[in-house]
């Protein structure tokens, strides 16, 4: 029993996070930057942070993850990191030849008061940034926010730097994709193609973090949003931003900067959220919804109908990022399941309100918490008090799953002990079908493995 240290007795904790349900800002900034073509993320701080972020992304995507570091030492901490960053910019452009360097700060560089935009400005004015090359930046101290806000900051940084308004309006939409998998980015593009809507997807990690095996190591794989695409975002008809936590900031900036209005929608997870997404696209792109998309929806609904008896009333515990948890909880309720416990280490003002809307009537017993102390220990204690039938969340749920013998569906970040997340989408109706399939398999596998011999059945 790995977690036999955990008891159901919930003690008020004032200063302690145990088994966090979040991680720190820079890793989100790094992930977002990897979704730009020809971009090398750069971590302004000591080597350790950068090394951890790269390792974690590597473990999740099973792909090489490149990022440079300012390699702070004590000197930098005393005199500031300016010279490190200036030297780094020069070195990176000569050695690694990216088109773009995406600098993010770390706790350390923020605390000593390095001003990234000032330093990058200095590099530019001193001619250290070669013609046609770019250095963008985002502040990401981890003592505020979480990996999700780090992602949001970098996407905002990208928009701020690149998006320009010209005289020519482009017949295209901006889609701010939110923190989702390469497979989901691919799925978003597929849906938009079916709807015949031209678009710029930002960022786009497909073909970067799911790149095919060719026998070559590409520092900059073929995927990622391109510079002309990012520049053109200022001329788009409208922006659809998926997930408030990860994308609202960038959407607002784009609106202020280039007067491109935006609609916030949830990540299209499940039926209703995907409906809203499709509606938003149809409206903003002035297109009608094609039959093929309606068919996909119909198939998802059909499978739920076929299997609803297995879903009814099942109690589920969820953890992860707010943008995912909100539509996921809604989807579970739509499938007649009961998301009873929900934690997210990422703070945010609307979390409780949205959960109340979704769960208030259908799952009045639900407990949810986000921000400080919303961690996996709390989740486990709730489960100990009153168990659940299913867990949905990132890899860290495996301890609870094993100790309490609860079926477990992996979703979110990081997943470092299974594959599939970067290849099969969970967005859209097709993604909904995959979530459903995983849920059913997990529940039924347990039933098959544990039911008494006399009730073991062939047909389910």
């Amino acid at each position, binding site marked *: 029993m790995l977690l036999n240290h955990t008891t159901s007795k919930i003690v008020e904790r004032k*200063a302690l996070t145990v088994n966090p349900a979040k991680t720190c800002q820079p890793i989100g900034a790094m992930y977002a930057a990897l979704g730009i073509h020809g971009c090398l993320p750069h971590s302004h701080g000591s080597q350790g942070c950068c090394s951890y972020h790269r390792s974690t992304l590597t473990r999740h995507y099973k792909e090489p993850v490149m990022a440079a570091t300012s390699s702070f030492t004590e000197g930098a901490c005393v005199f500031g990191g300016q010279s490190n960053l200036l030297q780094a910019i020069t070195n990176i452009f000569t050695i690694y030849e990216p088109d773009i360097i995406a600098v993010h700060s770390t706790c350390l560089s923020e605390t000593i008061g390095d001003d990234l935009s000032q330093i990058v400005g200095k590099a530019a004015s001193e001619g250290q940034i070669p013609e046609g090359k770019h250095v963008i930046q985002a502040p990401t101290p981890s003592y505020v926010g979480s990996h999700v806000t780090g992602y949001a900051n970098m996407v905002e940084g990208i928009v701020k730097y690149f998006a320009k308004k010209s005289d020519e309006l482009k017949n295209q939409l901006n889609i701010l994709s939110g923190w989702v998998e390469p497979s989901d980015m691919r799925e978003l593009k597929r849906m938009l193609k079916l709807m015949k809507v031209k678009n710029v997807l930002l960022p786009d990690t497909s073909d970067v973090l799911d790149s095919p095996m060719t026998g070559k190591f590409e520092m900059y794989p073929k995927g990622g949003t391109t510079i002309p695409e990012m520049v053109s975002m200022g001329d788009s008809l409208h922006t659809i931003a998926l997930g408030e936590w990860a994308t609202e900031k960038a959407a607002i900036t784009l609106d202020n900067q280039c007067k491109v209005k935006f609609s916030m929608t949830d990540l299209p997870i499940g039926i209703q959220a995907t409906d809203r997404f499709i509606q938003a696209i149809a409206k903003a792109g002035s297109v009608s919804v094609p039959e093929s998309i309606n068919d996909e929806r119909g198939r998802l609904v059909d499978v739920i109908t076929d299997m609803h008896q297995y879903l009814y009333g099942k109690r589920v515990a969820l953890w992860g990022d707010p943008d995912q948890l909100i539509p996921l909880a809604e989807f579970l309720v739509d499938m007649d399941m009961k998301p009873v416990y929900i934690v997210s280490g990422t703070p945010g003002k609307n979390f409780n309100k949205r959960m109340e809307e979704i769960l208030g009537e259908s799952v009045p017993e639900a407990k949810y918490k986000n921000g400080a102390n919303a961690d996996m220990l709390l989740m486990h204690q709730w489960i100990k008090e009153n168990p659940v039938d299913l867990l949905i969340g990132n890899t860290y749920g495996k301890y609870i799953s094993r100790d309490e013998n609860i079926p477990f569906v992996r979703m979110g970040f990081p997943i470092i002990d299974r594959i599939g997340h970067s290849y099969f989408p969970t967005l859209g109706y097709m993604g909904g079908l995959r979530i459903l399939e995983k849920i059913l398999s997990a529940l039924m596998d347990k039933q098959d493995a544990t039911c008494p011999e006399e009730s073991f059945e062939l047909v389910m």
Partner: protein
Amino acid sequence: MERIIKERSTQVHTIGTSAHDLDCEKKSLAGSVSQRACVFCGSRVVLYPIADALHLIHGPIGCAAYTWDIRGALSSGPQLHRLSFSTDLRERDVVFGGEPKLYTALTELIEAYKPKAAFVYSTCIVGVIGDDVEAVCRKVAAEQKIDVLPVMAEGFKGTKKDGYKAACDALSKLVGTDNNFQAPPFSINILGDFNLAGELWMLKEYYEKIGVNIITCLTGDGRIDEIRQAHKASINVVQCSGSMMHLAKEMEEKYDIPFIKVSYFGIEDMADALYEVAGFFKNEEMLQKAKELVSEEIKTLLPALEPFKEKLQGKKAAIYVGGAFKAISLVKALRLIGMKTVMVGSQTGNKDDYNLLQKLCDKETIIVDDSNPNELSEFVKEKGVDLFIGGVKERPIAYKLGIGFCDHNHERKEALAGFEGMLNFANEVYASVTSPVWKFFKR
């Protein structure tokens, strides 16, 4: 090799070309995609396997989240080390200081988990905002009546190596605190084994078979009470010298316990590790038993290795690992299964290590210190390598290049130490190098 940075040329050497001492123990260049980590990382990996202690990370959340149970160091009992405890510093704490939060967190934790001792790691931010971690630890220790050991591991204060030192400093405060213990004859400590994939358990069996008692292993499957008794050993047997040398030296000075450096990887080195201990005790019977054990093991091992050797003969390997001592054993072990090392490097090697490597390897072998993915992939292509041995960040690069891989770091799932380990190693190398998957694309 156009892409190699000029500033780094002193950290790369090809054997047989004009002689120069390899530059090492240097800071990484700002802007490099370095594979290195930080002081905190070093201390955390060393102390992590102490299973009945509390490990509290004082800093913002990331430092704790990324080190949550990432090293497969197995415990035969408590699992407290596998949880992740953090003070999760917020903006407020950074401005006003994190000491009150640290105090509360520690107190709450000790009350809830009743650990045998607590380690408190201070990370970068803590160093910058100037929290007096040592004072808080002293205070809590006095109140709670347990050892609370500060690990001064601010990431920017050096490299992973300095983290090893910080870990040793913390450990040395525990060593020698239990004097009631009577050590049995022929007692040793094992230093620098972390019980990845249960390796320590195999080693223990070997030592026990030849009549040697192990007081404690620092730090694999570690227990606080055993560490307190470590000074009663007759000798320290140091494996991962990079990480544990400080402690070995200190124990020699303080308690007059000599140490020997060994490696448990590969037949020769494993056998030597047993012989040297027997030799130290000047005990004929023990030496005899060791010889018997080795010949017994080899009798089954060598024929078992033969089929692998046949298939792997002449294949080329590249090694890039954390410590250089490990690299040395790897070169020998690869030779045993017919493979040639054409590139070898480490993140933290020192002059002696690199000199030894130069002597050991063939002409034209490339030796590197603190390398980066670009260099590594260039070398691998240039040399036509069939196998890469490295850690988590090297694995996907090797695969992308279409070559086999073997993890010799935190993510190994097979025990590679000892005689059984050698067979596992051969098996793993063979599986990777000869996998049919490589035929599906052109290199």
